């Protein structure tokens, strides 16, 4: 069999050393009553070649981004990933290592994570970042947990314009955390600071998204101020790709910045694995969930890196830990690091500008009404197609075009609305093609 490393001769020798006569004897502690006595119903073992054929056949029944002109976004984006990302992540020393518990054998991953933490802090304007959370939804729950313990309050406020999946996940975690969740409705696509201030009274934190789920730019500084006025922590959910052109949450008074890292360095991969990032102001350092890498020195005074502040974590604090996370998204976070190093400050700014310019061009070119006219947007915007969005999707996809995400799935009264995403992968020609199917 493919992954067997023992020969029958090996097994014989080993059993003898152990002092038993059969492999079966090794399982003597397993009560008869719970033994499994037939073969697992899992089919014939496959050869590598057969595995590849089987999976190629399955993959062929999907339509990936490359096979149609896709304007899908809504939280996961088709940004270009440079070839160096995979070239490095596929190196066995990174790919097949686990959590760097033994720093002398793990300086590679540890230093890279320290660099990742720094890059996240730079993007968000924060002081401390963990080494990754599961994704852009779970880091929101993490932020609530931090806020609850930091403020002693038991209410969290979510902007309705925050990604619906993020809101759902917070709601799923809330009962266990002993938190009540309150929504603040959007007004024409953005959140009203005064309404937010009102809702934030007595709240542990307020979470809003910039740019928000509709692609609109919130008056983020005002929202943060509103939260702060109410003594709630301001938490901004941000798109890393936007942070070359959009202000850093740390610069407008947020306590915590979170987000989905996928757009920076991870393939779409049908929704995962991706990485969530979580960064905060220094005062929250010891409340952070998950791994954090710190700098130190060895006995000879050499600089080195270790997992640090572990007294926050489950393997030491157990039921008092700041989180139960252990396996995280390191490899994906490293992909983000490499991608962001490749972009550099200039590339990141140009990338943001290109996405915005394409979106502005598309707004004009498509010639359909906007759902939220007059709002400033980044790389996404919502359009009205005048009939059920699903119908438009069906027809467009026949032409090899995916026109975008149907907002009706999550929002009342938007059954005729599509959320259209523009990344640098889209061309003016692609936009013309979309305009065509929409006008049909």
């Amino acid at each position: 069999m493919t992954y067997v490393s023992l020969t029958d001769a090996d097994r014989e020798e080993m059993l003898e050393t152990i002092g038993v006569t059969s492999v079966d004897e090794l399982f003597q502690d397993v009560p008869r009553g719970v033994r499994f006595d037939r073969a697992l119903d899992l089919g014939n073992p496959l050869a590598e070649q057969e595995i590849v054929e089987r999976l190629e056949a399955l993959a062929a029944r999907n339509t990936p981004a490359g096979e149609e002109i896709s304007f899908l976004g809504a939280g996961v984006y088709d940004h270009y990933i440079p070839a160096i990302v995979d070239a490095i992540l596929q190196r066995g020393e990174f790919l097949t290592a686990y959590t760097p518990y033994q720093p002398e054998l793990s300086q590679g991953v540890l230093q890279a994570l320290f660099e990742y933490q720094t890059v996240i802090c730079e993007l968000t304007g924060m002081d401390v970042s963990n080494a990754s959370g599961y994704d852009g939804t779970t880091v929101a729950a993490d932020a609530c947990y931090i806020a609850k313990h930091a403020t002693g309050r038991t209410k969290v406020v979510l902007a309705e314009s925050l990604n619906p999946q993020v809101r759902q996940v917070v709601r799923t975690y809330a009962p266990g955390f002993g938190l009540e969740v309150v929504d603040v409705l959007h007004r024409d696509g953005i959140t009203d600071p005064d309404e937010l201030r009102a809702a934030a009274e007595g709240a542990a934190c307020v979470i809003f998204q910039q740019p928000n789920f509709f692609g609109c730019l919130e008056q983020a500084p005002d929202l943060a101020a509103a939260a702060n006025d109410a003594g709630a922590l301001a938490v901004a959910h941000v798109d890393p790709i936007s942070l070359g052109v959009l202000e850093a949450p740390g610069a407008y008074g947020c306590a915590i910045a979170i987000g989905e890292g996928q757009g920076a360095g991870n393939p779409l991969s049908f929704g995962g694995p991706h990485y969530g990032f979580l960064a905060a102001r220094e005062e929250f350092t010891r409340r952070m969930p998950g791994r954090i890498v710190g700098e130190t020195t060895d006995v000879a005074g050499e600089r080195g890196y270790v997992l640090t502040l572990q007294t926050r974590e489950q393997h030491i604090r157990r039921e008092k830990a700041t989180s139960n996370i252990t396996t995280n998204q390191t490899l994906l976070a490293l992909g983000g690091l490499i991608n962001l190093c490749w972009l550099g400050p200039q590339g990141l700014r140009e990338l943001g500008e290109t996405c915005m310019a394409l979106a502005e061009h598309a707004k004009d070119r498509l010639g359909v009404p906007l759902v939220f006219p007059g709002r400033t947007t980044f790389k996404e915007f919502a359009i009205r197609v005048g009939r059920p969005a699903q119908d438009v999707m069906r027809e467009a996809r026949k032409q090899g075009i995916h026109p975008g995400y149907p907002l009706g799935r999550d929002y009342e009264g938007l059954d005729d609305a599509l959320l259209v995403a523009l990344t640098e992968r889209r061309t003016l020609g692609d936009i013309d093609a979309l305009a065509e199917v929409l006008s049909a």
Partner: protein
Amino acid sequence: MKLIFEKSRAGRRAARLPQPANLAPAPELPAGLRRADPPRLPELPENEIVRHFTELTTRNFGIDTGFYPLGSCTMKYNPRVNERVAALPGFRDLHPHQDEDASQGALELMHDLQEMLAEITALDAVSLQPAAGSQGELTGLMLMRAFFADRGEADWRRKVVVADTAHGTNPASVTMAGYELVKVETDPRGNIDLDDLRTKVDEETAGLMLTNPSTLGLFDEHIEEIARMFHEVGGLLYYDGANLNAVCGISRPGDMGFDIVHINLHKTFSQPHGGGGPGGGPIAVRRQLEPYLPVPAVARDGKRFRLDYDRPKSIGKVRAFTGPFGVFVRSYAFILAWGRELKTMSEDAVLNANYLLARLKGAYELPFDRLCMHEFVLSARGLKREHGITALDVAKRLMDYGFHPPTIYFPLIVPEALMIEPTETETKETLDAFADAMLAIAREAAEQPERLKEAPHGRPVQRLDEVKAARRAVVRYRFEEHPDLAAEPAAPAATEAPKGV
């Protein structure tokens, strides 16, 4: 080695982006929203980026580097073909919001995987959504909560029983799920202490969280009795699947009496651990708990597959979309390779562990003298008493012999614990080389303890000052103001935390 920021030079760049011809530049953003100071990302040409990260990898140890017997983590070989199939454009470039009719292959793969996991765990329904084992635990506890709430028992069923050998994630999950933790002790044979347990199970009990085989690598000989106890009081049993690699095709959690199981795909079913992740923590449950599973469910209508959001009793979502799909592709490929012979995997894993145990138990203390399952726990207590050599010293010295150390200082009930899990993918020669090294180290402990104290040798760094790291908390590069820790005094040694789980 320099940090990448220390290699940066203004104006350098790697990325060149497309400049769409005759595309009007984006309008200026309003001042408050526009970025004032650019993030200080490093500026390097592409070849220097490649060199930087290539050099970093040379300072890291993976399974591809050598033996990695990190107890409880099941560090088995990561088949390269899994990387190849996960990178197929039809999977890698598939948008999670893609229409169902354009993602049938992905949905079928997930549905197949669900059925495989149901067969392996002997349970009825599976959700692939949780991102890792710990999230699987939390999800499982949320299911308990929803289940009891539905029956109006939530108010008084507040307690979850956890063994003192449990992984830290278990108690942490209990707290995050809003339950009260009740600890139960381990008996002299390494099983749960039934007498202690009896005093702790009653109508207030929501359930039990148990790893079986336990983190001691021992199969609980009273599992049937234990299951009966909880079911009699209407409680549920949660199976921490981290050790499933020991029992595939040999004993199935559902048959043991467990109602909820999480599976660490990245352990039993071979994921590249990527320096800490990603993983996958699907949960499998009995029929009665299915209504509460996260949405969406992957459902099948004849030949067609779809995402079912219509689950009114669902706890909701624990992460985005349907879970870490790329992880599913790899584990699916791994299970296909074994097929119905999967039992051989667990048999060889257990054989490898018992062989190592047999070779080592003379030189290191064995707290529970039984045959083990896929892993076992030794204690360096004797070495410490006689020569002042700790489990940490043994671990560091193993590096000199070219091995990754086992998990140490866990489980907590074993002093100076060395938790060793070889997995099925190692050859006898590798096991023998490791055993020889362990035996040599035990001798060295007596003959030249200082060699061990100063280990490891010839690595990029020597032993690092973890106390200083925690006290100073320098957790990001600070550019101009970056402190020079080498100039600061060393901190006193601390008591050791678990390393490896």
